[in-house]
């Protein structure tokens, strides 16, 4: 299943958003003056009548999307995840989530690796924020194929969806015929000793860590959880039943994200020993990717060390 080919999520996003804008009369791309970073500029260049520039004003941008959706259109608001989730949160809550309007929100440059931009541009809270909003669907794809599938599923779904994208290249994990469904987890590797439930960009690093741990005699089950809301509770309970040890992994704060969501399910339904891997309760900084992953505990070697410790002490 694992292929060494890599691809940048924004390239696939770009291809799909253009196709949706061309083929679906309802779809409009709405930009917050970052189209040439997010690669939404392809719509501006090739289908300009389906592109709306809202300038550097995210609050207005998201409220405008609400108005557009109320007339029957399907706006796709695309900007950096940090600005989408925090600068326009009240607008999203009052005018998109509560009235359950058909607005798709794409948070580009999510997580820790945002291209040497640092604390203001990293989004380590977006999953936590979006998943507390009633009526919201939250998806963090792991590779380009899943980006495309998630976008198509969001296009077919009537209601607000948040899709979390990353800036840089990730290995392909899925074949092009992968059958993605909102709310469904995928077991990428079977294992018996410990389960790692991972989401988004952290899934490929988790698979690599699992491979290294296998060499050390620890059998890791890797469950990829692309949809954080609605959460695939059955998949969580099933893998907990199997290994009795749950690790969560996400390029996000350990507070409020996937780790918390999984802990809520297990705490109420099947208390299970857990370890949350993510950015600890602190702000990050600007630095090259590999150095950030290492310092903030998300690199493959960090994961190997943490999972091994957790397994040995359990």
């Amino acid at each position, binding site marked *: 299943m694992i292929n060494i080919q890599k691809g940048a999520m924004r390239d696939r996003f770009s291809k799909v958003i253009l196709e949706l804008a061309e083929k679906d009369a309802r779809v409009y791309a709405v930009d917050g003056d970052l189209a040439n970073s997010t690669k939404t500029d392809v719509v501006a260049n090739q289908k300009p009548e389906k592109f709306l520039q809202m*300038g550097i004003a995210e*609050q207005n941008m998201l409220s405008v999307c*609400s*108005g*557009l959706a*109320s007339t029957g259109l399907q*706006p796709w608001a695309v900007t950096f995840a940090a600005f989408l989730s925090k600068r326009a949160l009240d607008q999203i809550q*009052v*005018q998109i989530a509560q009235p359950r309007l058909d607005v798709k929100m794409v948070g580009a440059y999510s997580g820790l690796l945002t291209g040497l931009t640092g604390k203001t541009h990293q989004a380590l809270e977006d999953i936590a924020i979006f998943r507390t909003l009633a009526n919201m669907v939250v998806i963090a794809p792991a590779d380009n194929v899943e980006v495309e599938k998630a976008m198509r599923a969001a296009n077919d779904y009537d209601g607000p969806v948040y899709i979390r994208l990353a800036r840089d290249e990730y290995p392909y994990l899925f074949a092009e015929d992968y059958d993605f469904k909102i709310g469904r987890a995928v077991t990428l590797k079977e294992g018996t000793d410990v389960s790692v439930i991972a989401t988004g960009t952290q899934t490929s690093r988790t698979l690599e860590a699992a491979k290294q741990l296998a060499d050390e005699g620890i059998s890791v089950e890797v469950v990829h959880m692309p949809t954080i809301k609605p959460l695939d509770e059955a998949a969580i309970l099933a893998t907990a039943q199997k290994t009795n040890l749950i690790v969560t992994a996400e390029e996000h704060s350990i507070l409020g994200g996937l780790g918390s969501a999984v802990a809520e399910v297990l705490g109420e339904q099947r208390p299970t020993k857990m370890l949350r891997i993510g950015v600890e309760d602190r702000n990050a900084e600007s630095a090259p990717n590999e150095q950030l992953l290492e310092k903030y505990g998300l690199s493959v070697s960090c994961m190997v060390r943490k999972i091994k410790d957790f397994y040995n002490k359990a």
Partner: protein
Amino acid sequence: MEIKQLETRAKQIRSTILETIHQAGAGHIGGPLSAVDVLNYLYFKEMNIDSKDGRKENRDRFILSKGHSAIALYTVLAYRGFLPMEELTTFDALNSRLQGHPDMTLLPGLDMSTGSLGQGLSAGLGMALGAKAQNASFRTYCMIGDGESQEGQIWEAADVASKYGVDNLVCIVDNNRLQQFGWSDDQVTRNAPLEDPSDRWKAFGWHVISIDGHCYDSLDQAFKEARETKGKPTVIIANTIKGKGVSFMEGAYLWHSKVPTQEELQLALTELETEGMEG
């Protein structure tokens, strides 16, 4: 005569608002009373709407961005036939379609959920852009407050609306010059910072019309002028009086959200000359 009818109904609407707030024991008064005449004009004269089909596709849209004046909108909608008059007694109650702040999912005729200030005009811009995108003829009206205009998002919307030249969007500023607490001028009165926001809107590229927001002749001319204005959005600065229609409520910031006692209600109804009229 048409204007006479509007004026008579305005008094009835004001009375119903006061009775509803009194009965509910909560709600706003000053802002709803200042907004009544604009709403009355919009729903009975200006807008293309169908009370039997509140979600008709090509209907004109209205957004009450100053959502705390919801009772004024609900009352006008009731007079216009969108809901039974008796339903007004459920205002603010559990399971009511008439929430403290408008919820578009509950009542056909409410075109946008509001209540958090500053957001409505942007949604109006989205509707206006949506109409243009779909070659639809409907127009979008949005009422904001002068206090609400302290929210930066109003000016984000103003900026982009003129950039797109949405001449199917009309913003009405209910310029009643008071807000919940605001600034003290002379230790007695309290006021918003700006007397006339016309220059600001002009600077943002809007067509500006400033009128007496309680004068139906002026409203008539202003909305006609807005319709005839092409290539840019129009803002109507409706200069109004907070608490309009009841002498002891007019211009008194404390009546922003105060519930009238039985005695105060009777005094108010007497002033509005609606006692014994059909409600």
